[in-house]
């Protein structure tokens, strides 16, 4: 039986180029701009509005009991689809017919109030997610048990560890008993043991006839949980089918090498009001004429951006991701004040460090060590090839790092045989 049928679903956003960030405009600025715009009609370029289709003509149907993994780059339309399914936003055209109660978990512990106790938050969060009071009462003990917070039921959740917080949030959602469960990237938090518990719980739900839609950058989790997958790119559904098939073709399409991106002028560069990215480049220090990156190759990353604000205290935070979506490492610079102009940074990545595989790099520009001004996501992606000497083992080398550590074996003692 089909539980979700989407027909020609599209969602359009209007990007107003003049007002890049509506959030930061105050009333005075808007009024002055309106007045300016009224007198200055010739200034057409500035007021240009651009249409952006977050989803375009998407058709699909999902059967009852399917566990669907949704993969795709950031901005491919995954989150928009989930928002439409959760009724947070409406499609511009098309329709989705849904049979059964939908529960969506776009965030763990939506609406948790830090001052309220665990007990009070179970009722609050349950009601927010659409549960009736009797239902929450009925499942109360199982929720508490699943989350493992019985001792802290009457403690405000602000005193919870982040693990307890996530466990409680997930436990409530898991007992919603919906016909259709939508989950967005929530397993990224929580420890390994709890992730396992969640995956187990989701599989149980699916076995009892529930349908699950699961978005994650963690392909391992998708492969572990889902029997089918959908692959979105640029607002369109590229592929739908068996999980392994879809994931493999997603990986092969995305693992293109992009070692360099530059922008000519701040106006067209990615960023915000305060910073714009000028250049990001990964420069491998090739060992031989072959010009390919292998595990021995050291690399130098160059990053440059325009700073638009005098005296801004800035620092960078860089994440290197493996293609499964897991973060291999995160490094940050110190924070210091900069004048307007170009700010540059370099990072050395040594050879004999990363294992073979595909990687991507994201760089965050941070102000006052706390506010993320811009996050340049997956700006660089590259493959590292394998290189082995003196080893007679040809299987895939496990792990994300491949350090050349000094690991010696020697005869410590010789047994004396009479």
């Amino acid at each position, binding site marked *: 039986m089909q539980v979700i049928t989407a027909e020609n679903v599209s969602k359009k*956003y209007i990007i107003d180029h003049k007002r890049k960030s*509506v*959030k930061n*405009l*105050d*009333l005075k600025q*808007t009024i002055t701009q309106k007045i300016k715009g009224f007198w200055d009609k010739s200034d057409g370029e500035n007021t240009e509005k651009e249409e952006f289709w977050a989803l375009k003509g998407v058709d699909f149907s999902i059967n009852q009991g399917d566990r669907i993994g949704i993969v795709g780059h950031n901005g491919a339309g995954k989150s928009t689809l989930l*928002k*439409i*399914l*959760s*009724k*947070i*936003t*409406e*499609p*511009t*055209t*098309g*329709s*989705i*017919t*849904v*049979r*059964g*109660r*939908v529960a*969506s978990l*776009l*965030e763990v512990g*939506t*609406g948790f*109030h830090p*001052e*309220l106790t665990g007990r*009070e938050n179970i*009722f*609050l969060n349950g*009601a*927010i*997610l659409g549960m*009736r*009071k009797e239902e929450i009462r009925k499942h109360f003990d199982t929720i508490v048990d699943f989350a493992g917070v019985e001792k802290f039921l009457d403690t*405000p959740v602000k005193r919870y560890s982040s693990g307890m917080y996530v466990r409680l949030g997930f436990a409530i959602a898991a007992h919603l008993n919906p*016909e259709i469960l939508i989950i967005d990237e929530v397993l990224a938090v929580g420890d390994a043991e709890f992730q396992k518990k969640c995956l187990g719980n989701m599989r149980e739900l699916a076995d009892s006839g529930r349908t699950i839609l699961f978005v994650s950058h963690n392909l391992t989790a998708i492969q572990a949980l889902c029997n089918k997958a959908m692959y979105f790119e640029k607002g369109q559904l590229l592929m739908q089918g068996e999980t392994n098939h879809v994931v493999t073709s997603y990986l092969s399409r995305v693992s293109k090498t992009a070692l360099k991106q530059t922008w000519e002028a701040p106006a067209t560069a990615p960023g915000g009001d305060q910073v714009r990215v000028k250049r990001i480049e990964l420069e491998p220090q090739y060992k031989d004429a072959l010009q390919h990156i292998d595990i021995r190759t050291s690399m130098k990353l160059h990053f440059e951006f325009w700073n638009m604000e005098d005296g801004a205290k800035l620092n960078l935070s860089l994440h290197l991701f493996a293609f499964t979506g897991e973060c291999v490492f995160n490094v940050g610079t110190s924070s210091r004040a900069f004048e307007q102009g170009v700010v540059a940074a370099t990072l050395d990545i040594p050879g004999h460090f990363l294992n073979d595989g595909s990687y991507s790099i994201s760089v965050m520009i941070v102000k006052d060590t706390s506010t993320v001004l811009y996050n340049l996501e997956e700006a660089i992606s590259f493959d590292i090839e394998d290189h082995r000497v003196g080893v007679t083992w040809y299987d895939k080398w496990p792990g994300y790092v491949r350090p050349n550590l000094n690991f010696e074996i020697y005869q410590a003692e010789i047994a004396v045989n009479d």
Partner: protein
Amino acid sequence: MGVQETKIEAGYAAKNYWRDLLNNTELLVILAKRDISVRYKQTFLGMGWVVLRPFATTMVMVFVFSYIAKLKSDPGVPYPLMVLSGITIWTFFSNTFAQVSVSILYNSNLVTKVYFPRLLMPLSSVVVGLVDFLVTFGLYIAIATWYQHPPTANILYLPLFVILSLMASLAFGLFFAVINVRFRDVAQLIPFLVQIGFYICPIAYSSSLGQGEWWYKYYTLNPLVGIIDGFRWCLLGEGAYFNPNSLIASVVVVSLFLVFSVYYFKREERSFVDHI
């Protein structure tokens, strides 16, 4: 087992708006409960603040207006009771109005993550305001008993003025709640408006003082004048000054503005998630 079938398409939410609102009354209660229990966490006096503030304000106002400025109260009405009754209804209006104006922003984490009719959020602020009102009203009754000035039969009309005041706070609050999503100026504006309102409304003085002045007819255009005077008349009896004509302005202005605000709110609420 009946399986509900939903068709999500453009205009979907608007079509089922009132039904969804009715289905979510439990959530309304729980959001209001949250706001009430959260407010005085980690305070020593707790709910005591609800009565302490109007009580202290009344004492200060009585001192300033009755003892220093030597204003006269309406005949047969103790000055403190006149001030306290005014403050009771004004606090109800202004607190509810202020809470409604920030309700969407205050709940922004919900706006971006779950769906329910957004009108629930301002409505839960109204429920919180009503609970506070009942507490301060208890304070009034206690003090009126102490002054041996029990309410007259006029008190039967009291619910009318409470409802009118509730509608007024919703009418003005909803409008600012929408504006607040895009313009954070509202957060600066509201306390200022409330402060001005405290002086231009007949709270610490009687509006009978303006009778016969040239500006009096403009003064009564303020919808709060009719509400406050009427509320006082219900509690203090015929001695309290109440011009029924000012009530007409209240009813007309409040109803028109409420219809406009609800319409405006409903039209804009679908775009909250894109702008918040």
